[in-house]
């Protein structure tokens, strides 16, 4: 795999194939997020790690153990993601000072992680690993950017029925319009 392909995958994962905004995977986690940009960045980093480790484990399981029983894919993948998230949560609690993300477990188990693991089964192992990092970075940047933009929205200037979630959706829609202008492909 040469540098151009890796760069293409990374750019696609962050921009034109952004999971949270364009593929609607993990969108709820991004829209519901009311944390500061800094906390969003930390949670996003944790989710990226979950995506990478989950892909490292689920790809071989899918290609070697689930060949005869493909209908167990979702159950096995959810189980692996659960295990990975719990282990990262336990380690982070012990080694990170002021670890305050009590909701990390619920946050990190989202559609983006499971969807990525399922998508990655169609690629080769190396591509799957690069894709998981790229999608994770894209997810992290989306969360941070969205948290920053949402904190600057002046609710008073918005018609009452559009306050809250509708304006949050429209804000995300505007970011989507900008991303749609870019057409990098995996």
């Amino acid at each position, binding site marked *: 795999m040469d540098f151009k392909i890796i760069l293409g995958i990374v750019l696609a994962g962050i921009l034109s194939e952004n999971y949270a905004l364009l593929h*609607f*995977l993990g*969108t709820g986690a991004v829209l519901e997020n009311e944390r500061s940009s800094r906390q969003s960045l930390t949670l996003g980093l944790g989710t990226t790690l979950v995506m990478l480790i989950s892909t490292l484990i689920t790809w071989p399981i899918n290609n070697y153990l689930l060949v005869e029983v493909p209908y167990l894919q*979702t159950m096995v993948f*959810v*189980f692996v993601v659960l295990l990975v998230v719990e282990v990262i949560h336990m380690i982070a609690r012990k080694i990170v000072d002021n670890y305050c993300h009590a909701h990390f477990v*619920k946050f990190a188990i989202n559609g983006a992680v499971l969807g990525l693991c399922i998508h990655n089964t169609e690629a080769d192992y190396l591509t799957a690993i690069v894709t998981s990092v790229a999608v994770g970075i894209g997810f992290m940047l989306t969360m941070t950017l969205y948290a920053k933009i949402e904190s600057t929205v002046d609710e008073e200037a918005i018609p009452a029925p559009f306050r*809250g979630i509708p304006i949050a959706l429209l804000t995300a829609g505007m970011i*989507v319009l900008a991303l749609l202008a870019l057409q990098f492909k995996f």
Partner: protein
Amino acid sequence: MKKTKTSYLLRGTPSILLVLGAGFVMASSADIRAALGMGAAVLVSMLLSAVVVSAIHKIIPGYAKLPTYLMIITGFVSLISMLMQAHFPIVVDMLGVHLATLAVSAVIYRDCEECADHNGEATSIKTALVTGLFFTVVMVACALIREVIGNASIWGQPIELLQDYKISAIAGAFGGYLVLAIVMAVINKLTGLHHHLDEKEDN
């Protein structure tokens, strides 16, 4: 029981649920068939999970609730996915990976955690039915708008009259956000939910 239902629906839950499930509402609302399929999947999996969780919640220790509930939901989602694959393969193709990701959907999990975990079977079934039907109606409403305006078709059949006037962006990702935002604003206006939320912020 009446108190539980009223508080569940009035404390802004429909809006919160729609945000948690915004991903699959938008993903499945480009076509009415997909919206109905996803609506049915959400409704049935939510209902079955609520029944099982409300029946066993007393014997599950607190630290094991998340993994147990998630695996229960995943089991039902896998079952529904296989049934749909057998009977409605076109709908499963339309929904793609989103049908599987329903297993980790915060909507179903939160319904189990907040309602089925604290109530009996009857209340849990009622709440799951109300929530599932609410989701299905919103998804179908969004799908109707997006399919007619974005694809100039309905139930996959082209509408000749609208072919020259269709706006393709509405059927795409941006249309998903735009249409859901408008539908939610209409829900807020009709239910007066924004007044409730404003009051909550003031307090």
